[in-house]
């Protein structure tokens, strides 16, 4: 891991927010004693004191206050740990932001076991995406790295309505280097070496998916890696096109296997009668404290796990084809 280039997704968000608040005095942010989480400096707080509100450790109030701000034609960002937004303040997100369709952008940090790592389950949030994906009208984005956080934050600021952006621990590897253009609501095909399989991934695990694809190539299996950074609106057309060419699919995500990427792709597969799927993610369990990379390995999200999942699904697809 030592050769890996790191860039904090939290800093990337705050820097982008700084640009947005500079450009538009009607862009504001509400924290819940989460100023340090986002590495906001005293200079930042002083400079934007009219646009930054910190309501203390009170997430429900944070979200409802943001809703009130947004009713007055302001763009309100809300930033704290992913689960305190999506769980502690879930009802405020749903009833007071999403239902009236207000322009509030939720930034959920420490998401996944990779993002929550050493603090353990209380601060690892691997249900957040399933929750927000079930609330009507909320755009849901899972960037892979800092560059994508910057692009996604700008894209969300330029769209009207509620959105949820999932970010990490601040110790985040650069995944797509050099950065590539991000288009909200569209899948990104990152590697394309053949039709034997497709790996749909997002977040840091996109990196491991790319490594797995390279390893599979050396074993004679040629496939593609597709990033699904936007879970809503889901690029159904794009996913169907990929599946039409490569029906052997694996989803890889730092989240429970139920409710997020794996479920979204499964829904497309079921409704279009196309493709075969193996879902990788947390298999209906809670994780634990530990080293971020070690946690992923321990919970079935290692490169080797992805390779094996691809082999499994490729075999299944071949077997089905043989029986026809």
């Amino acid at each position: 891991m030592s050769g890996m280039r790191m860039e904090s997704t939290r800093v990337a968000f705050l820097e982008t927010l700084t640009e947005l608040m500079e450009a538009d005095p009607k862009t504001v942010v509400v924290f819940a004693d989460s100023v340090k989480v986002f590495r906001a400096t005293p200079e930042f707080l002083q400079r934007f004191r009219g646009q930054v509100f910190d309501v203390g450790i009170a997430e429900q109030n944070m979200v409802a206050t943001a809703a009130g701000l947004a009713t007055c034609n302001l763009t309100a960002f809300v930033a704290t740990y992913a689960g305190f937004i999506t769980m502690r303040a879930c009802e405020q997100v749903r009833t007071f932001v999403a239902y009236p369709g207000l322009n509030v952008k939720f930034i959920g940090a420490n998401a996944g076991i990779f993002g929550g790592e050493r603090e353990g389950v209380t601060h690892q949030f691997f249900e957040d995406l399933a929750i927000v994906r079930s609330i009507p009208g909320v755009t849901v984005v899972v960037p892979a790295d800092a560059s994508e956080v910057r692009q996604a934050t700008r894209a969300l600021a330029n769209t009207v309505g509620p959105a949820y952006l999932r970010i990490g621990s601040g110790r985040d590897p650069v995944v797509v280097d050099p950065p590539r253009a991000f288009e909200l609501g569209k899948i990104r095909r990152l590697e394309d070496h053949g039709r034997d399989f497709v790996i749909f991934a997002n977040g840091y695990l996109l990196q491991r998916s790319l490594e797995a694809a390279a390893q599979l190539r050396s074993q004679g299996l040629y496939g593609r890696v597709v990033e699904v950074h936007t879970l809503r609106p889901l690029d159904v057309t794009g996913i169907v096109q990929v599946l039409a060419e490569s029906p052997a699919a694996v989803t890889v995500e730092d989240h429970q296997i139920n409710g997020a990427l794996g479920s979204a792709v499964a829904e497309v597969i079921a409704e279009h009668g196309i493709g075969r799927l193996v879902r990788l993610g947390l298999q209906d369990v809670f994780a634990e404290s530990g080293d971020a990379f070690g946690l992923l390995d321990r919970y079935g999200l290692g490169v080797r796990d992805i390779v094996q999942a691809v082999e499994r699904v490729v075999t299944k697809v071949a077997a089905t084809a043989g029986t026809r």
Partner: protein
Amino acid sequence: MVTEQDIREVAEAARQIRRDVVSMIHLAGDGHPGPALSVADIVAALYFKILRVNPAEPLWEGRDRFILSKGHACPTLYAALARRGFFSTDVLPSLRSLGSILQGHPDMQKTPGVDSTSGSLGNGVSIGLGMTLAARVNRQDYFTYVIVGDGEIQEGIVWEAAMAAVHYRAGRLIVFVDHNGQQSGGPVREVSGLYPVLPKWEAFGWHCQEIDGHDLRAILTAIERAQAEADRPSCVVARTVKGKGIPFMEADNSWHKRVPTKDELDKALAALA
């Protein structure tokens, strides 16, 4: 200064609102008459004497904001909005019916003049705080008024907001506690350890007043005093009677959620003649 003329106008508005409320709930076949009637005088005072609003331009940026946090009392709000000209009174009978702009609980996107969606209890003070802070960002000088129920303030978020509002010196935030002493499950005193109510707000640093919530002069005067408080949010604990104005509903908590029959409606309207 509050004049006799002011009081007469508000009293007439409140009477009309109460008539609308019982009629609407009778027609809808569902609703909360008791809680709606207990806030009728405060809502009438706000819409007919206090709020700077423009029914022709309900989203005017400089308007005063009002949040009926105890959203189940919304027939009162709808009647006030209609009587104030935000929409036709012909719409009132459609309360709670499919396709109506009058949802079972207030929906800011469906009903002209409704500043905030509400009905899930506890959230109005926070939302009102957000509106108050937004006034600073937008360089506006409006006031934000919120009505919460006494049962409602058992919700923790109310006190999160109470703390933050003092921290942000939200002087233009004015909260009424509709203190009728009853909640769905029975007397507040029996359901929770909420009492004493006013000292809690005082302890959080709010400017506090306690009034008879059906005394129109007291309501209007309390609002004037609250408006004068520049650096602290204001709380007005309004002692009210659930079902106020209709003798057989007063002090009978079964009217928390209950539909008047045709006979009961006639009696209620007679009491409000």
